[in-house]
Structures are given as structure tokens and as C-alpha cells.
């Protein structure tokens, strides 16, 4: 009897401690209408060790499109109504490779550790232009160990290299673990959501962010699409 009670109490504790996980999901596709601007080739001839890593010139990445009017590098996340989550432990990886930031957009949860690698045969000086979080810049000669970092507060942080002006990216720090960054098919998927009312936000670096409200029943899967209007200039 006492044992049964103990088991019951501990199960209840487990349920209380764990975030209210659900199996509902929100997924969809991000597309554009209009004529997207032409991305410009980046001339890396001044940095030959980077230039020779690219058979064709790297293009600017402020608006990356895919087949079927898909929009890449859009961060879709639950901006309101998301269940509380415990502190993230998974360490993310961010690369400086071929004088480019990979990935171009790195989404992360507040307090999530991430490591910045220099895979090039040249020095980089990464400079995330944080305003809410502390701002820093760090030099990283070739062969040096990765830079360990994390941000405590949610913020969209443009990232630049102080040595190679064409290198640009974004850190998107969110107060939720429910986020997704679109690939070249523009699709996203937010999983493990319990029933509830959510606001879903889609952010693209040169557009106004868009939001949609979604109400999920228990175990329900809903489809939500975002369309960004783009101009050639």
C-alpha cells in the first residue's frame, strides 16, 4: 500500500516537473508573391583561401528563394501561448566556412549554448550586433578552438564579420523551444504542442514579421501558411 502510494506520488511529481508535452503540431509553408530582388554575387578574390572553396560565386542571402516560390531562412516560432520549457542543454553549432556563415540564420532558445567554429585558413572576427544582450566581438585565427556563447534574452541579432564585410547572418534568440527555420522548400513544422491557443510568428530578415493565431485541440495537427510580399528593389 505504502509502495503504491509512493509510486503514485512520484508519478505525479514527474508529471508536474516535465513540461506539459503534447502531440499536436502546426506545420506549413512560407512562400512569396511578387518579384524577388536579384541576389548579388560576392567577390572573395581578396581572400583566396575562401574564394577557391566556391566553384561558383556565393550570392548575398538577404532573400533566399526556392522552387515553387518557397522562401528559405524564415524563422517560424510560437511567439505567444507556448508551454514553458526547461533550460535547453543541446549545444548548437555555427560555422565560419568559405567566408560565409553557416547556417545563415541560427535560431536558438534563450540560454541555449552554442559554439562558433572557424573552419577557414584565415582569421575571422565575429561581431553579433546585440542591443538587448551584451554586445561583443571576438577574433578567431585559423585553428583556434570554438568560441562558446549563449544569450540570455530573446533578441534578433544581426551578425557580421569585422574582417570580411560581405559576411552576414542572424542569431534569432527566442523564449521558446518551438521554432523552425525553413529550408529551400519553405516548409516548417512545430511539434509536440499541447492543446491551446497560440500565436505563430514568421520572421524574414528584410521583411516585416507576420503573425497568425492558431487554436489547437489535443493531438490536433493544423496547417498554417505564410506569404511574404517581395519587391525587386
Amino acid at each position, binding site marked *: 500500500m505504502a509502495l503504491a502510494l509512493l509510486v503514485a506520488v512520484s508519478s505525479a511529481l514527474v508529471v508536474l516537473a516535465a513540461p506539459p508535452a503534447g502531440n499536436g503540431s502546426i506545420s506549413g509553408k512560407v512562400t512569396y508573391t511578387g518579384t524577388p530582388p536579384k541576389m548579388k554575387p560576392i567577390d572573395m*578574390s*581578396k581572400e583566396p583561401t575562401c574564394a577557391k572553396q566556391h566553384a561558383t560565386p556565393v550570392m548575398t542571402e538577404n532573400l533566399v528563394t526556392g522552387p515553387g516560390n518557397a522562401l528559405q531562412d524564415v524563422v517560424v516560432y510560437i511567439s505567444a501561448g507556448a508551454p514553458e520549457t526547461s533550460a535547453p542543454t543541446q549545444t548548437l553549432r555555427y560555422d565560419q566556412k568559405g567566408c560565409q556563415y553557416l547556417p545563415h540564420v541560427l535560431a536558438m532558445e534563450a540560454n541555449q549554448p552554442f559554439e562558433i567554429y572557424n573552419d577557414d585558413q584565415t582569421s575571422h572576427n565575429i561581431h553579433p550586433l546585440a542591443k538587448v544582450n551584451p554586445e561583443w566581438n571576438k577574433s578567431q585565427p585559423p585553428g583556434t578552438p570554438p568560441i562558446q556563447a549563449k544569450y540570455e534574452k530573446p533578441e534578433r541579432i544581426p551578425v*557580421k564579420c569585422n574582417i570580411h*564585410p560581405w559576411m*552576414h547572418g542572424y542569431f534569432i534568440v527566442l523564449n521558446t523551444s518551438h521554432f523552425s527555420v525553413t529550408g529551400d522548400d519553405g516548409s516548417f513544422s512545430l511539434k509536440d504542442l499541447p492543446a491551446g491557443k497560440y500565436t505563430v510568428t514568421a520572421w524574414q530578415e528584410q521583411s516585416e514579421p507576420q503573425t497568425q493565431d492558431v487554436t489547437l485541440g489535443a493531438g490536433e495537427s493544423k496547417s498554417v501558411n505564410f506569404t511574404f510580399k517581395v519587391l525587386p528593389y
Partner: protein
Amino acid sequence: MGKAFAALLAIVTLASVYFFAARTWWMPVDISAHGPGVDHQIIETMLLTGVLFLLSQLALAGFVWKFGGPGEGRKIGTFPGGARVVVFAVFVVVGIEILTLSFFGSKVWAGMFFEPAAPNSLHIDVQAEQFAFFFRYAGPDGQFGGIHPELINDGNGNYFGLDPANDVAARDDIVVGSLTIPVNKPILLTLHTKDMIHSFFVPELRIQQDIVPGLEIPIHFTAVQTGKHEIVCTQLCGLGHYNMKAYIEVLPQDKYDEWLKSQSQ
């Protein structure tokens, strides 16, 4: 001891002169139309100062050789008329030398910096920033778009601050990271900088010009030889200064036309 020092002085002097006379570490090839004038001026300056250097150092060595040892009881000689006359004579001689060099050099200088560029010059805009150079061509319409510094955005490649949304002339402007020019054609560069002082230096073009924030600085030249050379920044501009460079490629006119066409597609 005095004689050893005199010998050392003579050896150092002769060795220094030898490396210049033998052109061991000499200037790079000159590819510009105005370059021979600059080189002529440099060589004249080196000859004049070199001869004076050689004579004065050898004279010094000679005096050290002769009078360097202990000379108790030796009478201290003086120049006739005292030091004042010698200092004045040196002042006049060196002054005349420098004025003469400046007078003959001013023609070369004026040709580069005071005379306007030829009316048929190809105009290219240059933007310097930590730590790269960017170059802008007017594009097929032959017109440059206006510059709006507040629109400068390295992230989307708008290094010059163009406004293609509202400015039709800016839409076909070609912005690249290397300078490509036709041979034997006068070139007019307008130098800008986004952030701080940089310098545009192409040793082979015999051109070195500071770029100052807030100023549009014109320089003009004609390249008379095809080839590829380095453009380097020669103002210490920060941690990436060592890496601030670009390339200039001088092409025959037909190859240049092809290149330009390929850029505007």
C-alpha cells in the same frame, strides 16, 4: 679603434650605395602613362641625395681615420670664418637642392593632381571600408545612381548606399569587388570611404592616395600595360588592415567590353 670604426663606416656606406646602384630591391614594374615621370623624379632624388650621402659619409670616415686616435697636444682646427659660415653654406646648398627637385617634380605632381581628367575618361566609383574595396560602374545607361549613406547595407551587397527602389539610374549600376579597366584608356576614380581613413595604393600604377571620410577624392591615370596587380590599403585602419586589398586587372579593350557585358546581365 678609430681606424676600425672608420673602415666600418666606409664599408656600411659603400654596401648601402651598392644595393641601390645594383637595383637589388627595386621598384616594381611601371604600368602607367605618368609613371616614367614619377620614376625619373625618384631616380633624380636618389642620385642627388645618394651622391651627397656617399661623399659626406666617406669624408666622415676619412676624418675618423685620420683624427680618430688619441691626439694629446693636437691643435683643434676650425673652418675659416667659424661654424656660422659653414652652417649657412649648408643651408643654402641643401635648400637649393630641395627647391630644384621640387621645381622639376611639380610638373609631374601637377599632371597627376591639378590637371583635370581627360574628358573621355572612364569614370569608376570606389568605396573603401574596413577591410575591403568596392568598385562601381555606371552600367548600360552610363549614369551613376545617387548615393544615400543611410542605405548602406553590407548584408544585401549595397556597399555604396544606392536606392534602386526610387532611383532608376541606380538599378543598372555594377558593383564589384575587383577593379577591371581597359588598357590605354584614361581612368577617373572617385574615392569614398564609409568609415575612416584608408589609402588606395597601386605601386605598379605609381599611385598612392589617402581616402578621407566625407570627401570625394578624384584621381586619374592611364594604364599602358595589361596585367593583374594588387591594390592595398596603406593607412593603418584596424585589425584587418593587413588583409585590406583588392585586385586591379588591366584588359585589352575588347576583353574589357566582354567583361562589362557579362557583369550587367
